[in-house]
């Protein structure tokens, strides 16, 4: 059922799943199904409640309940002071958010998509990321920039870019990229509680996907440490490293490959910067093969960085083949459905790449 769900969603439909979304109340018992959207929503709600310095600002976050409904219900609960609708002025409101952080508040600045963050990128890099260093520790900037990143479905070139590599290039930023609901919840809480600028890259196609969440991960103080990757699946033949939506693709590929006797270890980066290279190295030293998978473009990307880091560290001597990168195609995103599908890594591309890497 889970895999048919995934194929349904992979076809590009953005569906809010209603099935099995019971809330967990009281003690004892089962894990529940929670969509990524709801996990984010709950995390926002809990952090707004926990610390009155936290507030959310962005386009349509308040009265519209969020362009993608991530902030549903928050304005009704917290009002105009804490949930602020902005005009279409990214550079302006990102700067306002950074200034508010400098003056003691803890803003969450939403970009409707990270494509629009390019308008404001100077505020993210020059005003937020560099200030603690330039001031020799006098001026912290506790801010979260969040929003959907990367490809969606049929939104064409200007609305489909992945910014993981752009932001992760810059010292002074933490860059986080959750995959599932547990990631979304735990990492968003950590990001909001972090006293530093965090770029939080969500994925629009994942918002409606449901995942099982443990009791522990539903607790109000559940956080996932920034900078630590997670091994989602153990394996011994090849390491697959990915972030965000493509972790799911890797797990799908691993399931298919397992039938042929190839056991993949799938690592969910969770954080792009600082990258948990140790986890990758430990895995490579076990499997001797590495394939990176990302939605972004190949040049100067996340996979490129992983290649460089592995070469510089102890795991290089354990590689039986060069590292393989599976990436988006090096073109602006086309609109037509078939073209779009072929612009992004598919499960079959991962399977193919694993076999090539293993020389099978």
């Amino acid at each position: 059922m889970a895999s048919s769900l995934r194929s349904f969603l992979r076809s590009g439909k953005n569906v809010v799943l209603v099935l099995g979304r019971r809330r967990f109340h009281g003690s004892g018992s089962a894990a529940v199904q929670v969509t990524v959207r709801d996990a984010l929503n709950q995390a926002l709600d809990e952090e707004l409640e926990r610390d009155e310095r936290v507030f959310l600002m962005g386009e349509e976050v308040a009265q519209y309940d969020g362009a993608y409904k991530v902030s549903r219900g928050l304005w009704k609960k917290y009002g105009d002071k804490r949930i602020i609708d902005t005009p279409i002025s990214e550079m302006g409101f990102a700067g306002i958010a950074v200034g508010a952080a400098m003056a003691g508040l803890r803003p969450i600045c939403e970009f409707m998509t990270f494509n629009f963050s390019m308008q404001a990128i100077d505020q993210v890099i020059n005003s937020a990321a560099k200030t603690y260093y330039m001031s020799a520790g006098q001026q912290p900037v506790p801010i979260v920039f969040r929003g959907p990143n990367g490809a969606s479905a049929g939104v064409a070139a200007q609305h489909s870019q992945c910014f993981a590599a752009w932001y992760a290039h810059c010292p002074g930023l933490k860059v986080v990229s959750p995959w599932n609901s547990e990631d979304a919840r735990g990492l968003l809480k950590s990001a909001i509680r972090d006293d530093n600028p965090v770029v939080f890259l969500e994925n629009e196609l994942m918002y409606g996907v449901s995942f099982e969440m443990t009791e522990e991960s539903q607790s109000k103080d559940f956080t996932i440490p920034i900078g630590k990757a997670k091994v989602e699946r153990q394996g011994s033949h090849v390491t697959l490293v990915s972030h965000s939506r493509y972790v799911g693709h890797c797990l799908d590929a691993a399931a298919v490959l397992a039938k042929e006797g190839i056991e993949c270890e799938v690592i969910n980066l969770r954080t792009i910067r600082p990258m948990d290279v140790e986890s990758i190295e430990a895995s490579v030293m076990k499997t001797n093969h590495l394939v990176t998978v990302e939605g972004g473009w190949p040049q100067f990307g996340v996979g490129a960085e992983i290649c460089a880091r592995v070469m510089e560290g102890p795991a290089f001597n354990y590689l039986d083949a060069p590292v393989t990168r599976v990436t988006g195609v090096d073109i602006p995103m086309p609109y037509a459905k078939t073209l779009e599908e072929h612009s992004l890594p598919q499960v079959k591309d991962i399977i193919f790449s694993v076999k090539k890497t293993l020389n099978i």
Partner: protein
Amino acid sequence: PGKMLTNISSLCGACCSPRRAFIFVLFVAVQKCDLHKLDEAPATEVVMTREEGLKYYHIMQTIRRMELKADQLYKQKIIRGFCHLYDGQEACAVGIEAAINMSDHLITAYRAHGYTYTRGGTVKKIMAELTGRRGGIAKGKGGSMHMYCKNFYGGNGIVGAQVPLGAGVALACKYQGNNELCVCLYGDGAANQGQIFETYNMASLWKLPVIFICENNRYGMGTSVERAAASTDYYKRGEFIPGLRVDGMDVLCVREATRFAAEHCRSGKGPILMELQTYRYHGHSMSDPGISYRTRDEIQEVRSKSDPISLLKDRLLSNNMASVEELKVIDVEVRKEIEDAAQFATTDPEPPLDELCNHMFSNNPPVEVRGTNPWAKLKSVS
């Protein structure tokens, strides 16, 4: 010209030293401000006490001398990189500070040494930052354009970016309900930045307690205002935001206008915009001689007719509020302070190399930072 109140004058006689009776309180007429969307205006009859006059003189002279010393050190190559000097504009920084509280907030762009001082930075720490030493106000990590102290948010290198930041600080003031405001400065050059207009819009919509101040010194680097702006009425550029155009060379005029603006903000009316007409004697920065786009005659004319320190000095002397000798004493004190600071700034050591990677993140466990090569694993602590 000032008007003297003879009543006060005779009162003063009773409480001064037998050798000299000074005027302790002066009523002064200052230039009227041009108004935009305002029915009321700042006072044109203002009060200056002797104490205030001497204080403003001291502070302006300190800024002047500090900037001239920086010029000297730059030419000796002891200061490097960018250095944007404030001499000529002292009345702006001093007048503004005189009308706000230390608990208020202020942010400006890169011509920031004067404001760093009025906001509480010491000359010693400012100069040591210019020379890039460990005793600098940012431990040598920031330099001329990135100086910070309490309620002073720099020092910002990307001109225009500081304006949304300042509105954000004001948002925090309103959010926290602390009756504080933010003074948010930019120049005639930056005044054409789009993000400033985005900020005007949001600050107005949300009634943020921010005083936008355009320091119009007639030139954005080498471009005169006429060549850069379709409308040089910077005080009107906020359109729906009320505005004032102020004589930025008269410290009392600036103070009075800022008082008026602060009252406007604190009463919940939202933002207000002030244009200070001022002048910089130096070029845009130390690499600009400042005479290719303006004449030496123009510079000389401002110096002789409108120098802010001279204007104040004349006011104090011609109204018998201070003596030539005591102003000289202040000059000597200032010179000494600057000399001592320069001495420190040239002898203090540079920051140690093991500080290189520190201050990446606040409240963070130590992290490893990659150096120039894969074997260089450097340490960074909060």
